[in-house]
């Protein structure tokens, strides 16, 4: 890497790191006031615990030499980051660490407002070792998905969004609905927090996608541009879709739409041009909006719409990459052949993620005698229940 490349990658890494606090705002604003801190706490723990686990074994599992026929990287190879190959690999460790933090953090939205903090920690710790780096190895570390299909996944549509999104669905189903849902409205308590969080995610996503080029080059510039266009387009089209269907355009729609567009463009950012970005933006905006409506139909309580936005958006982006990738950028010809490769990657990831998420939840449930908060904690809120804190104290009469 040249100096400019390194500066660029450090910049990109910092931006991706900022997505975690941005996510805390985005999610935190959507829960009820009594649970806002539990969300912030969980995101912080993804940053804290997730980083440590990455340093200890995660990086090795994801990017160490393939073992067991490409199932995972050698977990001890870079134990505590030993034997890194100079400045270039150190930069890679940093950049990829931020991805390893945010991926489990995305799942939080699905089980928000009802998981015990201890269960959360155990779940996130295990998932950060057994799921994320394994799938990352399969796609980016020379593992089985790359080997079998050669799927394109520029910045993690499959590794991150499909993976986290479907894990979210499993956690939501296993934990069950929040008490009162869907009869009682569980409205966002602070939508300007959520909207600002979406803005910060958008900002950070430049690092996420354009940084995935690994250098300052045309691919990075292109990724930057199409990332922005997809976010803008999806935000507008989500709002238009809900205006038509529900009768009013909402701030939450604008924010969710932007995120949906960002998710959708993630696997494609290095491979599609402006037109591709517009197509992905329109579809991500409209389809993710519709997908979010499915949860009341099928009665799974995905609290903050991880499935509708991340699974559906990631899936959409991964599959559309099959048709929209331009040869000049991706070196692959778009069409059913590429679509097949994309589908392969998505299916394998989904199956593994569902399976492992179930297994981890099952074990956590056994170890902790339940992973769901007591009803009392749920009623008074996890902030008091788990953390003995209150999100807002506007008067001096106390909690």
């Amino acid at each position, binding site marked *: 890497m040249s100096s400019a490349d390194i500066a660029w990658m450090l910049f990109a890494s910092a931006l991706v790191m900022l997505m975690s606090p941005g996510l805390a705002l985005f999610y935190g604003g959507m829960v009820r006031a009594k649970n806002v801190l539990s969300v912030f706490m969980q995101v912080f723990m993804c940053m804290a615990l997730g980083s440590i686990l990455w340093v200890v074994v995660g990086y090795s599992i994801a990017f160490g030499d393939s073992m067991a026929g490409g199932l995972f990287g050698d977990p001890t190879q870079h134990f505590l980051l030993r034997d890194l190959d100079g400045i270039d690999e150190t930069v890679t460790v940093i950049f990829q660490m931020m991805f390893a933090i945010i991926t489990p953090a995305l799942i939080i939205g699905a089980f928000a407002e009802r998981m015990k903090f201890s269960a959360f920690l155990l779940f996130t710790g295990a998932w950060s070792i057994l799921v994320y780096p394994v799938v990352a190895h399969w796609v980016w570390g020379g593992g089985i998905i790359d080997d079998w299909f050669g799927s394109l996944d520029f910045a993690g549509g499959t590794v991150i969004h499909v993976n986290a999104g479907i894990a979210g669905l499993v956690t939501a189903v296993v934990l069950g609905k929040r008490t009162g849902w869907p009869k009682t*409205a569980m*409205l966002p308590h602070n939508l300007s927090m959520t909207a600002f969080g979406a803005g910060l995610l958008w900002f950070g996503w430049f690092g996420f996608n354009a940084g995935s080029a690994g250098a300052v080059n045309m691919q990075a510039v292109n990724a930057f541009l199409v990332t922005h266009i997809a976010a803008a387009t999806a935000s507008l089209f989500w709002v238009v879709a809900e205006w038509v269907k529900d009768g009013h355009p909402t701030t939450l729609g604008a924010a969710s739409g932007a995120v949906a567009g960002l998710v959708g463009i993630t696997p494609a950012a290095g491979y599609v041009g402006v037109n591709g970005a517009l197509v992905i933006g329109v579809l991500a905006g409209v389809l993710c909006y519709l997908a979010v409506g499915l949860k009341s139909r099928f009665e799974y309580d995905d609290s903050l719409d991880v499935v509708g936005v991340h699974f559906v958006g990631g899936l959409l982006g991964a599959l559309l990459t099959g048709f929209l990738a331009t040869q000049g950028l991706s070196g692959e010809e778009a069409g059913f052949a590429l679509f097949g490769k994309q589908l392969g990657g998505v299916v394998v990831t989904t199956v593994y993620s569902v399976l492992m998420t179930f297994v981890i939840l099952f074990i956590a449930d056994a170890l902790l005698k339940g992973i769901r908060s007591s009803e009392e904690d749920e009623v008074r809120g996890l902030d008091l229940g788990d953390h003995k804190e209150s999100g807002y104290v506007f008067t001096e009469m106390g909690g």
Partner: protein
Amino acid sequence: MKLVTAIIKPHKLGNVKEALQEVGIAGMTVTEVKGFGRQRGHTEVYRGTEYKVDFVPKVKIEVLVDETELSGVVDALVASARTGAIGDGKMWVTQLDRVVRIRTGEMDTDAL
């Protein structure tokens, strides 16, 4: 001594305050409340599901008055709080045993 309590629409507070001042009332106490009544809240669609919001923001006003002022206050209050649309609210009057001004210990009419 009487206590006049009224539940009104929030944007009428300024009006009511002026009207009460005109009839010589020197003080009042105001609380934010939520009202449930014939006037229903808006319906919201949140993430694809419809919800009815039953509780509407209202303001509660409490005014301590002397018997002699009572009817003037009641009339001024009702007139100034009225929009004629559903949800204008209620007003009620309670008899009090005693009123004290905390600063001075003055009682009843002197306490106002």
